């Protein structure tokens, strides 16, 4: 369904412009541009970006940043952390779902974002640059909106591919960048939503600066263009979403970082965030002779346990996934080890287990030290795991012992644990 040409003013604010200037309305000739296309793309982004923002905030809460400075990559957040709450352990797939939605949806929305920006690009070249103070401020806000959207998508897409070329810590940039973007996003929605809804309700086109004054002959209908954008989203979705599942489904994620084949075979062959070699773990530190777990209480009570000592304690099982901030996850693995609350009991916390401060042998990584809240320690599925899927942990999955907590982000399931300090933080 191709719409006919429109007659429009060929002069900008009374001043004729040569067609070669992007400030001339006749420079922009695609017959696809118009309020109908922009409005459709706008409402899709309104829904999609709202979900991205909320799942992003939830993901930040999942780190329990207020519990301990080691969990918080953005300690100066101030009122931006107003909504934080103690992260629950139920349902045990909560973080897996939240982060899978955040990353997969973000990647899926890329074509919609690009199409939306394309559809409004003539607006960048309007003369006079500002008609009023409000209009001038709106244009500054639009720079923050466009810059912010691209900044968030680019840092996210680079981070999941481990391409750390952005200027600073991902957590800092993506978190504060999201708030800068969101401020402009809210203003934009408030200013444009009434018009967008009017455009979508009415079948006829309103006259708008977006409709080309001198449209080229169409090669595709607007509806076709929208299908094309949707096709791009669908292609990205089907080649990404599989990295949240195991087996054949993971293989459908053809280009996603944790798609394709598993890194190994057998019980410990599932996805790895960072290998032992990458984290700087030496075999000499993890051998039966060398490795000891130090469990401490705040009152100075301390026990040192070898792996054999741990095996003498009551062992429990839990089926829990690994879910990474990068938007990939595994299905539930069958972990076996000592309950964190039983380790707390060894240093005097028989009732009401407190928070715990966890330290790893690893030399690199922002979360080589991390903290878990009392509710996480108390959950009887929270383990210091020694086995996975019936076998000893592999070095890459944290041998000799690792933390595994229901619904916690992957990096808080500390591997190669060396010390647990129980006591309220």
């Amino acid at each position, binding site marked *: 369904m191709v719409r006919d040409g429109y007659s429009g003013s060929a002069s900008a604010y009374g001043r004729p412009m040569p067609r070669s200037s992007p400030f001339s309305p006749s420079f922009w000739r695609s017959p696809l541009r118009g309020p109908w296309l922009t409005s459709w793309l706008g409402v899709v982004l309104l829904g999609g970006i709202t979900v991205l923002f909320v799942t992003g905030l939830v993901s930040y809460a999942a780190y329990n940043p207020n519990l301990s400075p080691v969990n918080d990559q953005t300690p100066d957040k101030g009122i931006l952390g107003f909504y934080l709450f103690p992260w629950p352990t139920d349902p045990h797939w909560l973080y897996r779902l939240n982060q899978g939605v955040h990353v997969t949806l973000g990647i899926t929305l890329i074509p919609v974002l690009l199409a939306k920006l394309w559809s409004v690009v003539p607006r960048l070249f309007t003369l006079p640059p500002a008609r009023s103070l*409000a209009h001038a401020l709106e244009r500054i806000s639009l*720079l923050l909106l*466009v810059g912010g959207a691209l900044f968030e998508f680019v840092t996210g897409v680079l981070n999941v591919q481990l391409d750390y070329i952005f200027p*600073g810590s991902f957590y800092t940039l993506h978190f504060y960048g999201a708030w800068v973007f969101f401020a402009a996003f809210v203003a934009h929605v408030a200013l444009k939503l009434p018009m967008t809804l009017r455009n979508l309700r009415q079948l006829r086109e309103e006259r708008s600066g977006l409709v080309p004054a001198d449209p080229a002959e169409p090669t595709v209908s607007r509806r076709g263009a929208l299908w094309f954008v949707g096709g791009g989203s669908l292609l990205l979705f089907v080649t990404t979403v599989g990295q949240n599942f195991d087996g054949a489904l993971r293989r459908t994620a053809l280009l996603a970082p944790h798609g*394709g084949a598993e890194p190994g075979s057998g019980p410990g062959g599932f996805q790895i965030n960072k290998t032992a070699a990458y984290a700087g773990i030496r075999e000499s530190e993890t051998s039966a002779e060398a490795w000891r777990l130090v469990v401490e209480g705040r009152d100075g009570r301390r026990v040192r346990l070898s792996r054999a000592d741990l095996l003498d304690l009551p062992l429990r099982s839990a089926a829990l996934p690994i879910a990474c901030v990068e938007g990939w996850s595994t299905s539930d693995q069958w972990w076996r080890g000592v309950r964190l609350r039983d380790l707390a009991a060894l240093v005097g916390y028989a009732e009401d287990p407190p928070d715990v401060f966890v330290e790893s042998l690893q030399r690199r990584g922002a979360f080589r030290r991390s903290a878990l809240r009392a509710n996480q320690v108390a959950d009887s599925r929270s383990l210091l795991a020694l086995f996975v899927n019936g076998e000893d942990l592999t070095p890459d999955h944290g041998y000799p012992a690792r933390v595994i907590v229901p619904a916690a982000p992957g990096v808080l399931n500390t591997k190669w644990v060396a010390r647990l300090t129980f006591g309220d933080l």
Partner: protein
Amino acid sequence: MRRPGIRIPLGSPLQLLLLISSFALTGYAGVRLLEGDWFEVVLWFVGAAVLHDLVLVPLYGAADRALLRGFEAAGTRRWVSYVRVPAALSLLLLLVWFPLITGRVADRYAAGTGLSADGFPARWLLITAVLFGGSAVWVVLSRWRAGGGGKG
């Protein structure tokens, strides 16, 4: 009654209030965003918008017009989308996954995840082949259907 002299038009007061309150939040988060290497962060923030609007959009616009002119010269204008769609989808995948496809993060990726990055360029080419191949099948089918319709 008009006063003499130049007055700056304010515009809608509601719009002004909304934008100023939005900027207050921008400022609060912005100073925290710029706490580190502020110059580079501003460069990334503004650069992303400028690079997109003034380089990427003109570039793919020009590529599309060149493609269209090529088809027009050959008198096959209506077939342009059969090339445009698979080409754009393939380039979209390259745009999103270029660090993995080009192998620029291959070493860190392999060391960190224990996975091999070798398969990404091949898989991207394979998807590209399927997209263009599917488009070719579509051309044949629509020609066949058009031909069949003519006979029936």
